[in-house]
């Protein structure tokens, strides 16, 4: 019954999306027509129904209803409740339902709240959103129905892939999805404004919170994904340039460029067509990401829930949306009026540079990710890895970081080089000194040395906009920018330190053996069997002491899950302010010894701390913008009331 209710709600939501599309599209031509009042309520109801359908699926998973195919295939009655719930979206059908739910809820919010845009633009935006949504409803209802029943209920579920049974991974995919869906909203706004020729600062201010929100979630999602790969896969690495990782990085790069250009449009009424273009590109990249992850066209070490047929479906959707959007863009871009002018050495100039560099990095990642597909069509097998991405990406990243350090000091519209020449020279000297010191004291690679030098300079440069300001009166948006830029420096510092200073030891140890890794002394106490809710494991008890200090206990495990049956290595981490000790246990050897892999990774947590700071910066900016909007709204209403009073 629950499953049928969910399915019915989903069909109704799809029908409402159809209504929303028609009502919105007609009302653009006839703003006073009979359908004009329908699009907004349709959007709200669609959101409610989609959320209801998702709640029903959540309920089925919580109950472990084994008559539902999806539950039987992805859950197990012995699984902890949290993973039963996260199993809802830990599979293809459920994650697509989550996608459509978030998208419909976003549409409901726009329909209910958004009052800044001209009504026609609003209608066009809702129509575009419904159009995009309909594609996903069709996908879900026709090819991946999450509520499908089994002819006879299963006796027991097959369980969830153990790699996904992890608290980090329970929340990482939905986080990324919120980001992707936020970009679909930005896409709808961009097309709505383009169709009604309303590419104005007001439009940019309405779109900005959605871009910011999407960007915050993408940032958090990528950070969480990277950390998950680091501790769960047991390889000790945090970025592999894997296609699935690139699939999340590409929309982030586009969203970062969009975020900056939408700010220029909102503040200075420049970069109109460019902002629309980035809105289209950012959503294209999130669709492309979904396609790459879901279709299995690319080799990936962590592609889950792969199905070529569904890949074809997403590819068709991708073609319709992107092809359509680009066609409209080509037809309409010329009619978007010219924006305000600015000189090359101005805040706008710096932001344009940043945008162009981000686009170039995006192109580099995109080419590297798709290249193997292309060559395979010609029968040549290629795999592209770090030897390509690191140096080629750095060629564009480093100049961008340099401009990022001083760009925020420039004034809007017109400025001279003079204002930034002093800090620029100071930062450059500082970077050279740091780089020279690192190169002299360690045998770090060129990229790692450059990374540390740029991180140091950017760390200081990002704080300069606060100089001479009253910190209490500095707007939250400025704090946001400073925090996010500082976060980039922190993350870069972590990445460069990890690649420059990591020490690795691989040993076969007996209980009682002591291993030294950098400043650590690690003793293997014992190896014992332990039992979890749906797994058994062998667990090593390690005592790790940093420079003779009191020992910390580390317990890496080698786990065996019994449904589905497979083994995973659970790493153990000891975190200090200056780095992390990372331990993995390998297989046993006949003579009773155990393989241990131990790393000392100085400052590696800075990578993820930086990511969190970047997201926090976005959040500060978002709160700052929203409260400023609310205040403006309140003041306007008060003055309108006063006017009424005086008239009365």
């Amino acid at each position, binding site marked *: 019954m629950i499953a049928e209710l969910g399915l019915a709600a989903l069909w109704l939501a799809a029908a409402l999306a159809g209504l929303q599309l028609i009502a919105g599209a007609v009302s653009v031509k006839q703003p006073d027509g009979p359908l004009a009042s329908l699009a907004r309520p349709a959007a709200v109801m669609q959101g409610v129904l989609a959320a209801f359908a998702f709640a029903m699926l959540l309920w089925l998973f919580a109950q472990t209803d084994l008559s539902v195919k999806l539950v039987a295939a992805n859950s197990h009655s012995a699984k902890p409740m949290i993973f039963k719930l996260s199993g809802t979206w830990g599979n293809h059908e459920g994650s697509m339902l989550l996608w459509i739910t978030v998208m419909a809820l976003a549409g409901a919010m726009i329909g209910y709240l958004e009052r800044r845009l001209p009504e026609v633009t609003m209608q066009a935006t809702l129509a575009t959103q419904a159009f995009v949504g309909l594609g996903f409803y069709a996908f879900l209802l026709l090819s991946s129905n999450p509520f499908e029943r089994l002819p006879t209920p299963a006796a027991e579920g097959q369980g969830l892939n153990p790699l996904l049974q992890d608290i980090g991974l329970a929340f990482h995919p939905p986080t990324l999805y919120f980001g992707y869906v936020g970009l679909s909203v930005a896409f709808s706004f961009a097309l709505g404004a383009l169709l009604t020729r309303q590419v104005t600062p007001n439009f940019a201010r309405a779109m900005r919170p959605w871009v910011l929100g999407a960007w915050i979630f993408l940032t958090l999602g990528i950070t969480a994904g990277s950390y998950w790969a680091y501790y769960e896969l047991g390889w000790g690495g945090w970025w592999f340039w894997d296609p699935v990782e690139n699939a999340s990085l590409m929309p982030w790069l586009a969203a970062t460029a969009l975020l900056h250009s939408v700010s220029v449009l909102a503040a200075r009424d420049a970069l109109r067509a460019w902002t629309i273009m980035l809105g289209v590109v950012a959503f294209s990249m999130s669709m492309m990401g979904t396609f790459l992850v879901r279709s299995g066209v690319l080799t990936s*070490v962590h592609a889950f829930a792969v199905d070529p047929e569904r890949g074809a479906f997403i590819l068709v959707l991708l073609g319709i949306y992107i092809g359509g959007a680009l066609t409209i863009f080509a037809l309409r871009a010329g009619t978007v009026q010219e924006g305000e*002018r600015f000189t090359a050495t101005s805040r706008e100039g710096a932001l344009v540079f940043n945008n162009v560099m981000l686009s170039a990095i995006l192109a580099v990642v995109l080419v590297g990710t798709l290249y193997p597909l292309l060559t395979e069509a010609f029968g040549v097998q290629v795999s592209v890895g770090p030897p390509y991405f690191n140096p080629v990406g750095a060629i564009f990243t480093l100049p961008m970081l340099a401009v990022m350090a001083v760009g925020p000091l420039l004034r809007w519209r017109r400025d001279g080089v003079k204002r930034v020449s002093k800090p620029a020279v100071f930062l450059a000297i500082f970077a050279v000194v740091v780089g020279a010191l690192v190169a002299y004291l360690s045998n770090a690679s060129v990229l790692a040395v450059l990374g540390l030098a740029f991180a140091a300079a950017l760390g200081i440069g990002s704080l300069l906009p606060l100089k001479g300001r009253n910190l209490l009166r500095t707007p939250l948006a400025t704090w946001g920018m400073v925090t996010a830029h500082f976060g980039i420096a922190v993350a870069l510092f972590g990445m460069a330190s990890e690649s420059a200073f990591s020490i690795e030891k691989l040993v*076969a140890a007996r209980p009682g053996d002591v291993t030294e890794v950098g400043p650590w002394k690690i003793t293997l106490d014992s190896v014992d069997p332990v039992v979890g809710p749906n797994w058994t494991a062998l667990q090593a008890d390690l005592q790790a002491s940093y420079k003779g200090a009191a020992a910390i206990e580390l317990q890496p495990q080698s786990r065996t899950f019994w449904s589905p049956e497979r083994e995973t290595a659970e790493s153990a981490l000891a975190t200090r302010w200056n780095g992390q000790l990372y331990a993995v246990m390998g297989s046993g050897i006949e003579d009773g010894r155990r393989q241990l892999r131990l790393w000392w990774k100085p400052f590696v947590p800075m990578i993820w701390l930086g990511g969190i700071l970047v997201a926090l910066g976005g959040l500060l900016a978002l709160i700052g913008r929203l409260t400023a909007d609310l205040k403006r709204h309140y003041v306007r209403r008060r003055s309108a009331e006063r006017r009424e009073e005086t008239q009365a």
Partner: protein
Amino acid sequence: MSALKPKHQRLVLVVVALIALIAAGLLAAYALRNQASYFYVPTQMAANPPDPTQAVRLGGMVQAGTLKTMSDGITVAFIVGDGEAQVPVRFAGILPDLFVEGSGVVAEGKLGADGTFVADNLLAKHDENYVPRELEEMTAAQAKRTVSETAQ
């Protein structure tokens, strides 16, 4: 710069963006040309061995019965084959979770002068449904060969 008319400014922006993107594309294409020789299957490696200094990937099936742990307890040796050629591989490290004999593997590392491939990283499949794409066709071809051999 300040004297530019709006139309010219837009043109300059478009040109700058285009130049940067074309430069990125060209650079990528140039760098990728060297990547063409990044992935090998044993047959290719036997016919055209890569330079010992060049980091490459070797993909193939771990041959049954060839996996051995050396006396140091850390180094493992096994043979990767594709049904035609075989390459001995040495790897010091912890084997990935799904690394088993008879299954596919992609090894990252360098081919030593003695013909042994020294891997510093092994990529095994991470999900029971996942096979490295480079190996998919090979598995099918192997299966075909096995069938034709047993049929004789």
